[in-house]
């Protein structure tokens, strides 16, 4: 009997070692441990053994069974892990195949420029305020120190609806509207569409966008204007950006200035982009003219302020090296996709 058990055990171990699938393993289990299995048969033959010998024999059978079961368990684990390995190997993919994407649309370059400018000024406590695109002459000109027959009115090539109503030529009328409301102090910017009767070409459009800025408070100085716009230029074009303030004339500011920034392509050394000068003109600004303050109901003896205006298209064209303004209004997907 003993030798029979030993024989079974050896055979079982051999068969298990040969099993290389879970099915073969199962077959082996059935062959030895199943109801009709060999070990079961031995167990069944126990009735032929004398009662004294039975416990010892029983123990030997159990030991054999335990050994086989343990081996089955180990083999199973091994086979399962092999099967998983095979599966994983079979599931390998070419990760360089194209991605599946949910196509996302693109922002208009003007929009990107606008959002950047807004972001910078909101961070400095400015409120974003809009004004009407069709505007009274009074706001677009008169309250900005551009009275009837002023040459600046001609210079700006205004579209007229009636004698008193125009398509605004600048975002500056929003200044007058906000000042008239009389809520002080003021820190605001106003982005929006403006119109001038320029024929469409690579550098002109009868409709374009500006962002106006206005600060009115006690003790606002030209130095504050410089500081604010330097900060703005650095945030927009990079920390190394330098600014240059040149005297200029606008009817609604005094003193007035135009602002150049160091060319962000060449860093100021001079290149094709800045026409060799190292500087690029980006905006006009100045201290709000005391007469404008008076007309809008603010006492210039008590309050001062500054204002500035930036062309959005100008920033967009410069930033992205777009050489033809018409691209901004054709809405060609091949163009928009690049932003």
């Amino acid at each position, binding site marked *: 009997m003993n030798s029979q058990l030993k024989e079974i055990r050896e055979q079982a171990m051999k068969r298990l070692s040969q099993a290389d699938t879970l099915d073969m393993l199962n077959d082996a289990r059935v062959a030895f441990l199943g109801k009709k299995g060999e070990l079961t048969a031995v167990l069944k033959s126990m009735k032929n053994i004398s009662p004294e010998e039975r416990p010892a024999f029983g123990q030997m059978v159990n030991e054999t069974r335990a050994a086989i079961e343990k081996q089955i368990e180990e083999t199973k684990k091994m086979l399962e892990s092999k099967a998983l390995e095979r599966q994983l190997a079979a599931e390998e993919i070419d990760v360089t195949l194209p991605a599946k994407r949910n196509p996302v649309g693109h922002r208009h370059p003007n929009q990107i420029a606008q959002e950047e400018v807004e972001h910078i000024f909101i961070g400095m406590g400015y409120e974003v305020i809009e004004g009407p695109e069709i505007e009274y002459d009074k706001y677009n000109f008169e309250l900005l120190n551009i009275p009837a027959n002023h040459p600046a009115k001609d210079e700006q090539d205004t579209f007229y609806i009636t004698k008193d109503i125009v398509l605004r030529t600048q975002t500056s009328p929003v200044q007058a509207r906000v000042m008239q409301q009389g809520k002080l102090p003021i820190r605001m910017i106003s982005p929006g569409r403006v*119109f001038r009767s320029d024929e469409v070409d690579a550098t002109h459009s009868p409709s374009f966008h500006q962002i106006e800025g206005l600060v009115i408070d006690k*003790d606002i100085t*030209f130095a504050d204007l410089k500081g604010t716009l330097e900060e703005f230029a650095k945030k927009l074009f990079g920390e190394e950006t330098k600014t240059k303030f040149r005297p200029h*004339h606008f009817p609604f500011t005094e003193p007035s200035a135009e602002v150049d920034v160091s060319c962000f392509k060449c860093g100021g050394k001079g290149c094709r982009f800045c026409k060799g000068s190292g500087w690029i003109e980006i905006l006009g600004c100045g201290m709000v003219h*005391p007469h404008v303050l008076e007309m809008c109901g603010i006492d210039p003896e008590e309050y001062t302020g500054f204002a500035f205006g930036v062309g959005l298209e100008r920033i967009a064209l410069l930033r992205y090296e777009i050489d033809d303004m018409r691209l901004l209004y054709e809405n060609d997907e091949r163009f928009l996709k690049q932003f």
Partner: protein
Amino acid sequence: MNTTYSWIKAYVPDLDVTAQEYTDAMTLTGTKVEGFVKADADLDKIVIGQIKEIERHPDADKLIICQVDIGTQITQIVTGAPNVKVGDKVPVVLDGGRVAGGHDGKLTPGGVEIRQGKLRGVESNGMLCSIEELGSTKELYPEAPEYGIYIFPEDAQVGADAVHELGLDDVNFEYEITSNRVDCFSVIGIAREAAATFRKKFVPPVVTATGNDEDVHDYVKVTVRDADLCSRYTARVVKNIHIAPSPKWMQRRLASAGIRPINNLVDITNYVMEEFGQPMHAFDYDQIAGHEIIVRRAENGEKFTTLDGQERTMDENVLMICDGEKAVGIAGIMGGENSMITDDVKTMLFEAACFDGTNIRLSSKRIGLRTDASAKFEKGLDPNNAEAAMNRACQLIEELGAGEVVGGMVDVYSAKKEPVRVVFEPEKINALLGTDLTKEEMLGYLKSVELEYDADTNEIVAPTFRHDIFRTADLAEEVARFYGYDNIPVTLPKGGATTGGKSFKMKIEEIARTVARYNGFSQGMSYSFESPKVFEKLSLPEDAPERRAIRISNPLGEDFSIMRTISLNGMLSSLAFNYNHRNKNVRLFELGNIYCPKSLPLTELPDERMQFTLGMYGDGDFFTMKGVVEEFLENVGISGRKTYDTSEKKPFLHPGRQARVIMGDKVLGYLGEIHPITASVYGIGEKAYVAVLDMPVIVSMASFDIKYNGIARYPAVARDISMLVPKAVKAGEIEDLLWQRGGKLLESVELFDVYEGIQVRPGFKSMAYKLVLRSAERTLEDADINGVMKKVWNGLEHMGIEIRS
């Protein structure tokens, strides 16, 4: 405005800077230099040589061999020029030098290098130059020969720099003068700025007394009838006129400003206009009837022939210069043919006046004639400058021997312009600039541009040529300019804190852009004005409200003449542009205003309505677009059930594939497939879909008030209903009923199957909905569920729907 360096230096003798230094410094004090051209940029190694010998070229008929003294040596030069003879002094470009171009006047950028070489076998060590080869023209150098080498006067010094001798070693600066600085439209004005900029002495020309002992009042009488348009009229008379070329120095200066020298009289007038910025006019005194000048408005329709021979028609707002019988000139714009100076002139009447700038500008526009004179007058000149210019011109007449100036000046000056005085408050100037300058520093800067301090009254006195100084802020700018904008400190505003940020409307627009983008739509922009043909293109009927559009009175053309009342034209044009360029699967959106007049013609500002317009072709259909619309509305908190109303049809949309989006009693917008006719009008060859959302309505309904409801604690129960539905019944109607009958317990409704086809009875469609029921308070029991379902079934059956399970 242009000036040359040499002319500026004539009044700022100590000026010694390079063209670039001049450009940078002037720009930083407010006289913006746009650019400069060096007349000698392409000229190199050119000296005055004297021809000592000439012999024929042995092998070429048209060439001669010259021995030329160039000061240091005699050198041999071969030339083809026909006009030189022994003894002539000529410009010689030496070996390795450069000239600006060919003798045909064609300039070569960078110049043409001249090398020693052989011409038909004969050595030539350089080239003799024509004025054209030196980069100029016979027009500006009238003494130059028609064809051939330029010949210097006999007293020219051999070996000297020929470029210098010709005045070509000069730089021409171009300025952008702002409209407030009328005084800088003159050489003197710019020289004054240059002197202040470089802190050098300003030496303007000294105008001396002129005239014989006769009295001009015996010669001419002047009456100004319309003094509102002519604040000053001065006149002088010059007799015994001797017309001749003006001297070289004057010709050179005019040439350097691009003005062609003509004769002494014309040149003096032009010279003074450049120098003083004051246009003048010369009449033939003998043609002035009654020797009388009357300044008056023209009669409506009055015809007048200007000195260019053109007959022009005046109106009553044009100011005329007349004699005792007739008009002799259009004031400030152009003189008349009938009184112009000819070579036979004996006595001349000189006019220097000050006309109203606005009137000149508008008249010049209406007549369609803009001249150098009108361009100056329209800026509004200083009447006190007229007298100075007049006297300067007469001084030059005498200096040049052009005639005998009659003593005295007729001067009709009704309201004398007095200097403006501004109280000097240095602390306010510092407060405005953020500087800490002393009173003395400020006065120094102000004095440098002739803003004098009157210590008795503590006032700054602004000369009358300054039209832009009225108050402290103006003085602050003068101080800042010469202190240097660069030197002003850099600070940030102090003072009251402000919160900043965007309005509610802008936040909604931001969400619109985000939702659109993440659904694959790119942002476009189109013009606010368009053609009235748009209405036809969109098949809008004659009485459509969109046709009530605002017209621009001076549009760029009919195609840009009305303010848009509908945003679709821009979108469809953009889709068509993309389609024509073979772009596939295009999705665009725009956020832009339409302009709805409250009344026409406009008496108040119109209603500007922001439209969120989406358009697409390619992948996707009506329901794709509907999904984007709903996604957006939910993102702005408009999450209730919307009605898709088909009772009103837009003519540009497919009649069976369009809907208005309605919530409550508010129309939020519409969406649909573009009508095939409209698509073909625009040239879009695929099915295209659009949605237009009216942002003011959406902004009024949007809300970000969210309240957390808790996560459901009791289980949900799902029930599917499969049904056979008459084709005419819309899903929306079924869903309305489900929600109405489902009551509080109904949590969601989902259509999960729609089928029409052979397995379904004709006239019907098969639909299947999943209803999810849940109570917030307890676990639902069969009785609850069956109660709801019973109500639902009954309702459906009333609609002619058969329940299958």
